[in-house]
């Protein structure tokens, strides 16, 4: 297969052949597989289940926000049987349950939904194929990382069903609240929502760390011959930087989680100052700790985390843009440079999540500067994407619909972050619905649209069949419209002063009721937003049906239905164990669409360079045809 195989020493020749013909049983082939494609699909399916679950949590919350204190019709009666009598007695949501829904919606969507799908699922499936590798460098570690994720996710789910309910101190789990929530009589010291949240999180972090190690090593070591760094598809660069963010940013949070766990279970005071009084009684702790320390360690991860959420989507969008405009991505070098700068800067901007903690002007100025700086490469990337469309022969396939929608949606999300970068403006906007709208625009019609695009795009590679185009469009248009009906008014609600995490949706607060914005009060806007959310839920049904139905009954297609240039499309669909019949060699860059003088409007990366072709750079000497 490659030169290194011959260097294996003292290799029992019979053992080698045995390995080739070794038939794996059901469990080793489908459940505990070490094949990156199977693991990628496992991550994808598991992650999508969690995305759906997190979405359902949100739909429940939206009832309370639109109709606070009212019984949820039809399903409200039997929710207490699932979530316990303290959750929704008579179908009416309690404040604690609302807080649990909020905290778990955030946690599950980010860590059990988007990261596993965007980074792990797409990365695992696509990256080895795109770099011409037979698998990841550490297949067993890969399997371990999936199972760590599955265990962590399950622990998060279980936390709903223990006495006291799931964690309810926000996805940010700020102390002292998070240290004292879910404690007291009747609550188990280990198996309560908040402690289980911490425990599950450790598994999720372990999964990401193992995955990150695998990705980085694979991309460095297993690139095919001729595939130099600057010939890598942009998706691979994005995943490479994302892996570094996960590798270096998660551990301080893991340290903090261990310490918060100790605070809860061993009654330490890492994050608890002296003199605390809970429910009227002074707490018996040593004190001497600091809630600020938790915030610093949390946001040290928290900020790179948001780039973990967006970079894979940038990568997917880049691939699909080039493919569906039939021209190379504009500014490849700038894109690579920008993604590296984003990765680096993302480690030194975190305190912009902490403007209201009363920090001094020096450190505040530092973080405001770095935060504004990091917007520059993001704008470069988005601009390069827009410019890539110019002069292209655009085909609006379903992936391309989601991809082109991503651009303005991410634009809105990104631009609305600018006011939040300034501590002065953030004094007002912090913890309002403006912030919710800002980050949801980036993740929901941003990243998730990128994920949908990627699913429709790579589905044929994984299954050999296409998803149905008509139902793809039926999925797309209502989703796009609903996303905007949900999140656009939230900017207005936020600017009017409506807070996050208000259990009554603002019903009892003046700012939400005493004036109208575009005809409705802040509280009244909750109605159209909630209805749009529920309709958007319905709009996902065609997608779910389309996805599963097309696995067996979708239109059969050849190995390269999109006529794309990158290496994964040279493999069979679906690729066999080992991926490539002939190990690919890369002779050219990743986006050689519409090359002048060629008969097809695309040239794949593994097509040798003709002596008559004019190319910008000399190929590596080893690849020039003799």
């Amino acid at each position, binding site marked *: 297969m490659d030169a290194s195989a011959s*260097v294996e*020493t*003292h290799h029992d020749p019979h053992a080698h052949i045995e390995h080739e013909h070794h038939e794996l049983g059901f469990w080793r082939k489908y459940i505990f597989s070490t094949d990156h494609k199977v693991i990628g699909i496992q991550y994808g399916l598991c992650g999508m289940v969690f995305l759906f679950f997190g979405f359902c949590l949100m739909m429940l919350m939206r009832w309370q926000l639109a109709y606070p204190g009212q019984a949820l019709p039809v399903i409200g009666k039997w929710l207490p049987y699932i979530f316990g009598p303290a959750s929704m007695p008579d179908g009416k949501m309690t404040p604690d349950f609302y807080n649990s829904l909020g905290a778990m919606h955030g946690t599950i969507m980010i860590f059990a939904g988007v990261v596993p799908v965007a980074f792990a699922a797409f990365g695992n499936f696509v990256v080895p194929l795109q770099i011409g590798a037979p698998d990841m460098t550490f297949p067993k570690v890969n399997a371990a990382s999936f199972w760590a994720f599955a265990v962590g996710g399950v622990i998060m789910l279980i936390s709903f069903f223990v006495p006291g309910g799931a964690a309810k101190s926000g996805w940010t789990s700020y102390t002292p609240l998070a240290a004292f929530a879910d404690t007291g009589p009747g609550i188990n010291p280990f198996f309560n929502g908040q402690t289980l949240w911490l425990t599950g999180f450790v598994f999720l972090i372990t999964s990401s760390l193992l995955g990150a190690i695998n990705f980085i090593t694979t991309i*460095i070591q297993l690139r095919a011959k001729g595939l130099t760094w600057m010939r890598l598809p942009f998706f691979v660069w994005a995943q490479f930087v994302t892996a*570094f963010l996960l590798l*270096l940013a998660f551990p*301080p949070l893991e340290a903090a989680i261990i310490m918060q766990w100790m605070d809860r279970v061993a009654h330490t005071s890492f994050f608890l100052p002296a003199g605390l009084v809970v429910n009227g009684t002074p707490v018996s702790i040593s004190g001497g700790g600091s809630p*600020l*320390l938790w915030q*610093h360690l949390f946001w*040290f991860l928290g900020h790179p985390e948001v780039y973990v959420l967006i970079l894979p989507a940038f990568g997917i969008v880049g691939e699909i843009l080039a493919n569906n405009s039939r021209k190379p991505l504009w500014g490849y070098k700038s894109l690579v440079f920008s993604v590296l700068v984003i990765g*680096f800067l993302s*480690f*030194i901007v975190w*305190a912009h999540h902490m403007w209201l*903690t*009363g*920090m*001094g*002007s*020096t*450190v*505040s100025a*530092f973080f405001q500067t770095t935060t504004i700086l990091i917007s520059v490469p993001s704008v470069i990337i988005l601009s390069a994407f827009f410019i890539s469309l110019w002069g292209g022969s655009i085909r609006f396939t379903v992936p391309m619909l989601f991809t082109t929608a991503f651009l303005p949606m991410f634009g809105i999300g990104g631009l609305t972050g600018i006011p939040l970068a300034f501590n002065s403006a953030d004094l007002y906007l912090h913890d309002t619905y403006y912030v919710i709208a800002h980050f949801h625009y980036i993740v929901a019609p941003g990243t998730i649209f990128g994920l949908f695009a990627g699913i429709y795009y790579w589905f044929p590679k994984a299954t050999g069949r296409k998803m149905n185009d008509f139902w793809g469009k039926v999925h797309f248009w209502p989703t796009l419209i609903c996303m905007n009906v949900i999140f656009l008014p939230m900017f207005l609600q936020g600017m009017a002063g409506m807070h996050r995490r208000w259990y009554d949706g603002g019903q009892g607060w003046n700012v939400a009721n005493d004036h109208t914005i575009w005809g409705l009060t802040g509280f009244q806007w909750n109605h159209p937003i909630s209805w749009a959310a529920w309709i958007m839920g319905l709009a996902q049904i065609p997608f779910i049906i389309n996805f599963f139905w097309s696995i067996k009954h979708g239109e059969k297609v050849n190995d390269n239905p999109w006529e794309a240039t990158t290496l994964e499309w040279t493999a069979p669909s679906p690729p066999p164990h080992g991926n490539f019949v002939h190990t690919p060699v890369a002779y050219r860059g990743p986006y050689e669409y519409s090359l002048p003088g060629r008969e097809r409007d695309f040239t794949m990366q593994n097509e040798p360079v003709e002596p008559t072709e004019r190319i910008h750079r000399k190929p590596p000497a080893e690849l020039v045809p003799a």
Partner: protein
Amino acid sequence: MNNPPDISQDPKEYEEYAHGVQKHVRGYLMVGALLLTFTGITVALSYVDFGTRKANIGIAMLVATLKAGAVAAVFMHLAAEKRLIYRILIFTGFFVLGLFWLILLAWYDYPIFHR
């Protein structure tokens, strides 16, 4: 030394290579002895009064850094490692120092904490 060519196929060449490894063994033993000695020095110095407590901490950390450096350079072969590993570690070092320094900066810049 760290990434030798896989010459274990040829016994004669390997003989020479193995001899090369042998030379490094003495280095390992010497560094081991050095580490034990410096451990004793760390303990002894901690009982010497250097004025402020901060000075004692500084000196102890200096000695610890020297010891850590010896472990990293010799035992972990870092002294002769490849560029890629250095790059990974330099970024890591930068970020962990950034973690300490920026939190410290933030800590002391809070107007309500006057020291």
